[in-house]
Structures are given as structure tokens and as C-alpha cells.
């Protein structure tokens, strides 16, 4: 695998928290590579550190030890402004509880990342393009008729689709999804997974965290996080190819 094929590389990630007098070690040396265009699922039991790992990968949190490289650039060396730009332009987050701003409409929530990445003057200069892009995304996500609604007027599945739209607004290279179906019924959850699959097929790199093995099966590759370490690395595509090869022979 060439170095350029990797979008994200985590080396020896450690993370620990203090809980009173005791120190809780969550990650104990995680090594992980994510290739461009890959759909990776990180699976693990509740409390195994999956969300912590995802937040570190998306620069929402810092590791106690170890390095995260995004396109060969060490995130720990980014200064605050560059880190903000990284979160704004390079990654998109989809959270389990959607995390939409209640005061804004669906459309405003979606183009919010385009707004925050610009000055007031810059926003007025490009607001039409941003709105068109947000409208287009919402239409593709089947929410074209909901743009003026407030998040509380939507169902869970719709809210998650809005969250996906927001995450995709700035066309990030990496989409990080933290239990994106965790708060949804299975039918709605499947709809969300369909969306993620389609995005991946269109070339979007996705890292998804879930505790549900069936959901993880929808990803191209599954890694299992247990006791703070990657225990099992299962390349579904490789297995699939091998099976296909056997069948061909």
C-alpha cells in the first residue's frame, strides 16, 4: 500500500482520563490506517473507547500519547487556526444524537459549515453558492421539502440526514460517523446506512463507529476495538475477493 493511498494514519494512540484519584486508560496504543475512499467501521463494546478514538481522529480531542496523521500531516503540530480549518474543511462529523442547532432551520443547519468558515463579508459574497449546494444536498437526501423546518419538527431519521448534509457541506475528505443509527429504529437506520454506502460508492472516505456488528457489516472494512486496542482487522473486500476467486476457480 502506497503512503499516498492513506488518508489517515494513527500510530500508538493512548488516551487516559482522570476520574477522581484513578486514571482510566481508554486507548492503549491504537494503530490504524484509513485508505482514501474506504468505508471503515470501528466496532466495539460500549465503553471500549470507539467514540474517543473517532474524536481523536477528527481532532475534536487530543491523544495522551501517539500521533494522528491526516494526509501525512501530523495533527498535533497544527496550531489552533489550522485545526479549526481542518475541522471545517477536511472532516465532517455525524453524531448519534444529530446535534443540530435548534434555532436554525434545516437549510441553515446544512450551510452552517460554509458560513463558519468565512468572514461576514466572505459569507455575503458566496451565500448563493452555499445555499444552492445546501439545497442540492438536502434534495439528494430527500429533504428538499423540509428546508424551512426547524430540527424539532423532523423525525429522527430526517434529522440524521440533515446532520449528514451538514457534514458533507464543505465536501470533506473524511466523514466520521459516531453511531449514526444508534438513536434510530432499524428501518430508518438502514436508510441512513444506504446513504452512507452511496456516498462511499461515490468516493467518500467514511469512518463509522458502532457497537452493532450487523451495521458494521455494511462497511468495507471492520476493525474491532477491545480493551483499548485494535484486536481484529477484517477486510471484507479482501475476503470477498478471495471467495470470488475460489468460486471462479
Amino acid at each position, binding site marked *: 500500500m502506497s503512503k499516498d493511498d492513506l488518508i489517515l494514519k494513527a500510530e500508538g494512540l493512548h488516551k487516559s*482520563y482522570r476520574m477522581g484519584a484513578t486514571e*482510566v486508560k*481508554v486507548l492503549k496504543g491504537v494503530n490504524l490506517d484509513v485508505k482514501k475512499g474506504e468505508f471503515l467501521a470501528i466496532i466495539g463494546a*460500549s*465503553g*471500549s*473507547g470507539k*467514540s*474517543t478514538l473517532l*474524536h481523536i481522529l*477528527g481532532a*475534536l*480531542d487530543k491523544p495522551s500519547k501517539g500521533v494522528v496523521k491526516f494526509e501525512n500531516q501530523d495533527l498535533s503540530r497544527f496550531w*489552533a*487556526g489550522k485545526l*479549526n*480549518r*481542518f*475541522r*471545517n*474543511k477536511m472532516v465532517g*462529523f455525524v*453524531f*448519534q*444524537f444529530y*446535534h*443540530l*442547532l435548534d*434555532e*436554525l432551520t434545516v437549510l*441553515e443547519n446544512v*450551510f*452552517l*459549515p460554509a*458560513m*463558519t*468558515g468565512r468572514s*461576514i463579508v466572505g*459569507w*455575503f459574497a458566496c*451565500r448563493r453558492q452555499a*445555499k444552492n449546494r445546501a439545497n442540492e444536498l438536502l*434534495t*439528494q*437526501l*430527500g429533504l*428538499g*421539502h423540509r428546508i424551512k423546518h426547524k430540527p424539532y419538527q423532523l423525525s429522527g431519521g430526517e434529522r440524521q*440526514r440533515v446532520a449528514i448534509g*451538514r457534514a458533507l457541506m464543505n465536501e470533506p475528505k473524511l466523514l466520521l460517523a459516531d453511531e449514526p443509527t444508534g438513536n434510530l429504529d432499524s428501518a430508518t437506520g438502514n*436508510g441512513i446506512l*444506504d*446513504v452512507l454506502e*452511496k*456516498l462511499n460508492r*461515490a468516493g467518500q472516505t467514511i469512518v463509522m463507529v458502532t457497537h452493532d456488528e450487523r451495521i458494521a457489516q455494511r462497511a468495507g472494512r471492520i476493525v474491532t476495538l477491545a480493551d483499548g486496542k485494535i484486536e481484529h482487522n477484517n477486510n471484507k473486500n479482501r475476503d470477498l475477493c478471495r471467495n470470488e476467486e475460489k468460486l471462479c476457480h
Partner: protein
Amino acid sequence: MSITNEKPMIQGNQKNQKLVGFHGWLFLPTIGIVAHLILGTIFTIMDLISLGEIIREDYWFYYLPKIIVETGILLYLYVLALRFFKKYQNAPQTFIRYLLACLLSPIIFFTIGLIVFGSSHVVLTALVEENPILQNFIAALIWIPYFKVSKRVKATFTKQKDTLPYKIALPIRYLTSKRISWLAFSAVALCVFIVVVVMTVMAGLVNEFKEKNHRFAGDCVVGTESLVGFAYYEDFVKLAEQQDYIEAVSPAIKSFALKRRRNLEQDDIVEIVGIDPARHSQVTGFGDTLYYHTDNVSETFEIPYDANLVGCVLGGFLFLQDTHSQLLSETRLPRIAYSISCFPLTARGALAQVGTDLVNTKTFYYSDQSSTGLPRVDGSIVYLPFEQAQVLCGMNGAPKRASRLHISFKPGVKIPAGCEKVRSLWQKFKQEKAGETQAYTMDTVTVQSWKQYRRSSIAPMENEQTEMSVMFGFVGITTVFIVLVVFYMIISHKSKDIGILKSIGVSNLDIIELFSGYALMVGVLGSGIGLLAGWIFLLKINPIEDWLFEHYGFQLWDRTIYAIGDIPNKVEFNILATIVISAIIACLVGALIPSLQAARQKPVDTLQVGRL
């Protein structure tokens, strides 16, 4: 490409291009908006210019809300015009709302008008003219259905409205959607209202008091506290009057005496002041303080019913005490005789008439009263003709003596500079007179500005004002604290939003700016409302006090103790500006700490349900 299994919504693209634009029937509301905009602006500006007068009118409670509502409708018309001519989707809805506002407002004010003014033919005609209900009803009847169903309207107004940047949009939404915001807003408005009212009244009282002292003393006073007075004053008066910066000089005699009203056994100690009324009025505001002789000051000590008698002017309070607060007759001067007894002193301070009669006594007749508005002055001073007072005090010997010289400067001369010049002049004069026989009497003479001369009276008032300012400084600190608590609560509620914003790349500075913008809005709106309410209250403070006194006997200041007429209510721009700026700064300071705290929050701490 659709990324869901649902079909993308087809957005209306089948509009007939021929229907787009302000043609057909739509041309009429277009003209209407422009005409209303021009005429409405002109009439509203005229109303706002005369707002001060309107508030002073008896029916201000009808006209003031009417102007406020009409101004609000005009502002909404501006919003409508913007949306209409930019062809925004929400323009038809805005137009309908505008028509409804134009219909409801006259109905409401017509009804209130009937209640307030009655239903006479004249009133009805005026109200119909002022409130065009029928005209607006017909407009609503035609245009509301048109804007609801017209294909042209639907085809023309298709543009989505502009979205403000989140740093402006979010604070506005927080302000309008959170009840707690209204708490912060009300706290600021209330504090501004209280501070505006109290500071204006206090500053008015202090300024009025200072002005009264200024008018009592003139610009500068050359004098001595010694009861002996000082000699050669006439020479100095001549010298001073030759100076190009001096307008006028008035010599005065000051001493203490016993006053006895004829037929009464009681003697009162009073301060006697001998003046030439015409001259004294040129230097001070003496003439304006008189009751009978405001227009003929030179005749102040003349007794109209007997030209041989000598008059005296009593301080307003003193006279009220003497007459047991009986009201004066505006036309007839009461005949009241007073014996004034004084110990005449030599230039050395000894009793002047030892061995003969120690006391000089003379009878004066009440000729007027002087109300300076200074309780200590009005309660103790009896003005006498200058020469008579000089004789009574033994200052009429050669050389003649006086107690002080009141000086007024020419317009444009600054008082400190003028006083400094008089000081130099006096020093020079004193040196010239050093060899004279009574030169020693000039040793105790000082040259003071009116402020220095009246320091003992003004200082307590200024101290009171300082105390009030400190107290209201505490009110300001309380406001900061209230705003801080409110913002702390708001930001605590909004920690999820902060996490979301940070997860999409918003910086700490942006978070501070966001909440500072919010604080700014609370500060500007709160202080604006507080200011307006304070201003209206101040304009009406005297009628309100009169009403309270009439119905409940309540007076804010007992006029028998405080020498004030009306409660001062002159709003000073610098005080208002200081209060508003302070309130806005208070809001920003109050919001700064929670904003900093919010900015420091890690997104993971606010977004995660559980840490692991």
C-alpha cells in the same frame, strides 16, 4: 445523483416567464408601496420631531403609543419594500401582514379615541380623518385575496430570503426564542431607566443649586468675613470698573443684627446685607428673586404708601416664618415694620459707640421679599439700602468701609481667568494702599470665584451627588452581575451549540464574538428601551407628582424643606450617552466571563453523552 431512495423534489420550474415582474395588477401595489414609503416617512419624521411637544400635551397617552405604532408600521413597510423589490418569496406574506397592521391600528386607535375624547361630531370627524379605517379596509379586501391567489405574485416572488451570518443570526434567534434573554433585557432596561431618572433629577438639582449660588454671588467676590469690613473699597470699585473684562461691581455690607417685628416681643438674629439694588442686580440675579420689584429693581427699598419710610427686603423663608405662611397679596404691599439693631464697630473691631448708645437701631418697612431658592440665604438674610446698612454697622466713617464687592465679568470671560486677573489687580491695589491709615483692614480680604465663595453650601450637595453616583455605580455593578448570571445560565444551556459549532471549525474567538454580539444586542435594546421609558417618565415627572400630591398628598420633596419648584427633568445628552455606553459595557463585561468559559470548553465535553 440522489443519495437516497426517495425521488428528489421537483422545484417549480414550470412558471410562465410572462407572468414574472411588476406588471398587470401588481403594478398598483408597487406604486402604493413607493407612495406609502415617501409619505409615511415624511409624516413620521414630522411626528417624531414634535414628539417632545406631543408628550407634554394632555392626551400624550393617546398620541405617544399612536406614534410608536405608526413608526413601527413604517419600519415594517421598509422591510416590506426590501422584500418586495428584491422579489423574495416572503414578500406577499409580508404585504398581507402590512395591510392587516394598517387596518387594525386605526380600528384600535379609533376605539381608544372614542373612549378618551368622547363621541361628539367634531371628535368623530377628526378621528375618521386620523384613522382611515374604510380606506384600509377596502385595500385589504382587494389585495389580500390577490396576493393569496395571483399567479403573477407566485411567479414573481420566488427568491429565497438572505440569511444573515451566524454571528448575527444566532444572537437574534437566542434573543427572540429564549425567555431568559428577556430577563437580561428587562434587567438592563430597568437599571437604565432608574439611573437615567435619578441621575437626571440629581444632576438637575445640583446644577440648579449651583446656578442659584452663582446668581446669588455673581462671578467673583472680593471680600472679608470680618464684621469690620475693609476700607478704600470705593477706589477699588473705580479701578475695577475700568477693566475691560469686568461688566459691573456691586459693593455690599454684611453684618449680623437683631430683627424685631413691630408689636412683637421676639428678637431674631438675622444677617443684614446692605446693597444698592440696581447695581446689585447688574452683578447678581437679585432682581429676579424679588416678588414685587422684578421690573423696577431700583425702587426696591421705596415704600409706595409713604415716601419717607425706608424699605427692607426679607428672605422668602424668613418672611414666611414672620407671616406664618400667609399668602402674599399680589397687588397690595402689606405694612409691616421691623426694628433692626446692630452693633457698630470701628476699623479695629472695637464697639464704635462706647459710652453713648452701644446699639444702632433703625426701623425699616417691608418692601419686598427675595427668594433665591437657597434655604440658608432665604431663611436668614434681610436686605437693606447700602448706605443705611453702612451706618448701622459703623462703616460710614472716613474712609468708608464695605464687607465685599460682587463682580460680574463680561460675556466670554472665563471665570477662573477673570478671578485670577482680579486677584492680581487686588494685590497691586493693596500694595498701592499699603501706606494708608486703614490698610490693615485689607489683610483679611480674599478674591474668590463664586464657587469658592459658596463652597460651604455647594460642597455638601456635590458630596451628595458623588454619593448618589457611587450608589448607582453599585446599581451598575449589580447589572453586570445580573447579566453575568443570566449569560452564565444561557451559555450553560447552549453548551451543546458551542460543541456543535466547534466541531465544524468555529474558533474560540468566534464563540466569544458570538456571545458578545448577543450581549451587545441585549445591551443596546435594553438600554434603548430603558432610555426611552426614562425620558418619557422624566417629561411627565412633574404632572405625575402633582397628581400624586393632589390625590394622595405625596410629594417626592417636601417644598417647605427643599427650595425647589419643579423637579428638575432636563435630560442632558452627556448623561444619557454615559449611561447608555456604561450599560452596554456592563452587558459586554457581564457576558465576557461566561463567553471566555464557553470558548474554552472542549467540544467532546459537550457533545458526548458519556465520556467513554
